[in-house]
């Protein structure tokens, strides 16, 4: 019973924040002269026919999976106060290399997929190693270097797709692409599952990679909370100086965190690559997951469970974009709403965290009135 109460106490602020975000967005929609209630309706409208609804759910899953992986990748760095803004570039490079290598080899199905996944992770980690090494050897801020490497990644991927991995069978005028990956490297979709569950099957493939993402999420949750690495990561983030003084090498942590973050970033492009695209093509490559992942990680408070919920929420809003447009509301409203959600959740959470902290201080003080710290006594109601 008490844990239920605690859970309620923990999610209550987030719910309050979500409602606030909804209200603020409503005001925005009013300002541009549209009906907020119609917009709200459109937000939850999954379509009229059973097929349309199944399609909607498919789009939701396909969108949430890479967002979750990207948020997870970003959160690893955040946990130790390391800002890996480069997930965007890391997953682009990783995807093109994985596509190229995947097309060049033929293996039995599960093995083929495994090799592609490992190549993508290795490539992402390798690309993330550059800012890590720059930071540990030369003190270059990872924020700057990863942002710049994002631009370089675009050029790098364009070169990969034209030169070493180019599909020789493409005709003139066709967009450069890697050769398609063989059938054995296709990740089975979830469409059949819809049928088994008694739903209509979506027309477009629903990426089965979501299962891998869930497993990765669980593994990361365990690693972060139960492993020495997870503890050292958290300690470095909370107090880098204390971590160093207690034998946690900050350089080693920067390298480890960046490599893991990059490896996870390498997975971001795979749901699409293995599930439906089967090749890397500059035009159809979905960019931007790396940046949105930052917001998702923030919203999810760097915890895998939270990130999963945040990814679902973001994907849910993204999915509603076209429908809002048909209501005459610009799809930018979705972006505004996502921004407001992140802001309000962060603000409300911070307020809640401080209240919790004060309560705890009071409890600690009640235990020990004699040696109560004077600073903490000054916390409430100071107004100078």
């Amino acid at each position, binding site marked *: 019973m008490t844990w239920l109460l605690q859970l309620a106490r923990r999610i209550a602020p987030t719910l309050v924040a979500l409602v606030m975000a909804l209200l603020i967005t409503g005001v925005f929609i009013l300002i541009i002269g549209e009906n907020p209630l119609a917009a709200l309706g459109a937000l939850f409208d999954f379509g009229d026919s059973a097929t349309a609804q199944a399609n909607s759910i498919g789009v939701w899953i396909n969108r949430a999976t890479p967002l979750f992986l990207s948020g997870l990748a970003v959160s690893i760095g955040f946990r130790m106060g390391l800002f890996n803004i480069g997930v965007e570039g890391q997953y682009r490079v990783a995807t093109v290399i994985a596509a190229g290598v995947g097309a060049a080899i033929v293996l039995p199905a599960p093995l083929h997929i495994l090799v592609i996944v490992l190549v993508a992770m290795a490539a992402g980690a390798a690309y993330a190693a550059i800012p890590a090494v720059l930071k540990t050897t030369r003190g270059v801020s990872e924020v700057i270097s990863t942002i710049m490497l994002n631009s370089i990644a675009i050029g790098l991927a364009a070169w990969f797709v034209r030169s070493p991995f180019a599909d020789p069978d493409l005709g003139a005028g066709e967009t450069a692409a890697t050769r398609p990956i063989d059938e054995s490297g296709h990740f089975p979709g979830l469409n059949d599952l819809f049928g088994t569950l008694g739903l209509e099957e979506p027309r477009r493939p629903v990426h089965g990679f979501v299962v891998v993402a869930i497993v990765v999420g669980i593994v990361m949750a365990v690693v972060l*909370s*139960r*492993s*020495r*690495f*997870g*503890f*050292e990561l*958290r*300690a470095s983030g*909370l*107090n880098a*100086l*204390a*971590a*160093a*003084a*207690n*034998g*946690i*090498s900050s350089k080693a942590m920067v390298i480890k965190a960046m490599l893991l973050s990059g490896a996870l970033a390498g997975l971001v492009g795979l749901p699409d690559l293995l599930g439906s695209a089967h090749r890397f093509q500059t035009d159809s490559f979905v960019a931007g997951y790396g940046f949105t992942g930052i917001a998702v990680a923030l919203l999810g408070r760097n915890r895998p469970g939270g990130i999963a919920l945040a990814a679902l929420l973001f994907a849910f809003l993204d999915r509603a974009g076209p429908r809002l447009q048909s209501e005459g509301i610009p799809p930018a409203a979705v972006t505004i709403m996502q921004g407001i959600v992140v802001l309000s959740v962060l603000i409300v959470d911070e307020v809640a965290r401080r209240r919790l*902290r004060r309560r*705890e*201080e*009071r*409890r*600690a*003080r*009640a*235990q*020990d*009135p*004699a*040696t*109560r*710290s*004077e600073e*903490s*006594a*000054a916390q409430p*109601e*100071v*107004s*100078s």
Partner: protein
Amino acid sequence: MTENAAPVIELTGITKRFPGVVANSDVHLAVKPGEVHAVVGENGAGKSTLMKILYGMYQPDEGTISVDGAPVEFGSPRDAISAGIGMVHQHFMLADNFTVLENIVLGAEPTSGGRLDFGAARTKIQEISDRYGLGLRPDRMVEELSVADRQRIEIAKVLYRGARVLILDEPTAVLVPQEVDALFENLAELRSAGLSVIFISHKLDEVLQVADRITVIRRGATVGTVDPQATTSRQLAELMVGSELPTPETTESTVTEVVELAVADLRICSDGERDLLSDITFDARQGEIVGFAGVEGNGQSELVEAIMGLRKPDAGTITLGSQDMTAWSAQDRRAAGIGFIPEDRHRQALLLDAPLWENRLLGWQTKAPAGGRYWIRPRLARQEAAAIMTEYDVRAPGPDTMADALSGGNQQKFVIGREMSTKLRVLVAAHPTRGVDVGAQAAIWDRLREARAAGLATVLISADLEELLGLSDTLYVLLRGRIVAKLDPADVTPEILGGYMTGAVTANGEAAER
């Protein structure tokens, strides 16, 4: 000083309750014009709460405040300021990217016809600066100034607002000795100009040096007001604690012949002309406490960092038992059984935003059973944290309490418990009782003595000479990165030690540089 003048400020029967605690109960304090009135007490005795009441930040539940004999009520600091009371906080509140002048007028900007009038302010500030010997340069940027300069700006800020009574909250905590002397000269100027200063401190020697009268607070209540001329620092401390003072003296020697930690010819270079450490050679035997005395900044921190593997020495070796550990990582050294009590617990020893059980793991995360090569075991860490809390009398609700919620003394007891609850070979303790109240101090000394009796080799660095003399078996003095004397604490007085520390006395004969 006006001996029998009516008090400018009088607090009568002040009581202030917070949920669960009574911070002040029936406190009386009378401050006369033209005196430096010290308020002393242990950490948590209620000094700060009392000053916040006087400064209008808190409202008392009972009791009255009178200014010039007339009762007043302060709703906010603004009321206190207009009554002529000003406060210099322990943590300065200055805008770094503003000039001295701008900082002083900030919040009380002089205007003429709606525009800022810096000319008048400049004249007034110059006048204040000259009158009280503050030596302010109004156009310097605050970020370029030293801590002592900033403190003088804070004082000027208060004077600029017309304060007749200045509250200084632990003003010397952030200053080096020379700066303390300069501050005391400033205070003397203020006093001779007829202003009153309330000086909050727990450094008894300073209080005795500077105060005209001293009010002692214990557990939220006034114990009494004494005359510094007729009081020794020991008597004052006993008033503060309310009992006989514990002494750091160790009983009998437990020093063995087995060398546990050997440092030889250690050297750390710097970019400057002088090495941070040079030719440091000493042994710490099992059951021995090796003390290092020295004015802060003479190489103590570097020595600690070199032993703990946080800083690479440029030359020399460090040996643990029979193993050369010079090349070991910090992690390896901890794992080998070297405990570490850093000088700044907030910055180096604790994760303030993490629960105690996580803090239990910090530094020992590789050590079974709670830690390990790959995995940690939160359940065991919680049990261990709970065990430390009972054994070391850490008062907190439980292992899931955030470290930040604990008082300084309890935090330090937890850190010491964490380090000593593992089987250690060597303990490096830097200022183990700094900022800790007298009760916790005695407990910490007891622990160090017990560990010494059990055969631990301890390297003790402290600024508290009594602690060093009382606990150490061998005492070294560090001056400018060198060991300038090796002393037997049994026949050294604090005065002689002070002489070595400042370089006034040079080692002769038996205590020459090794």
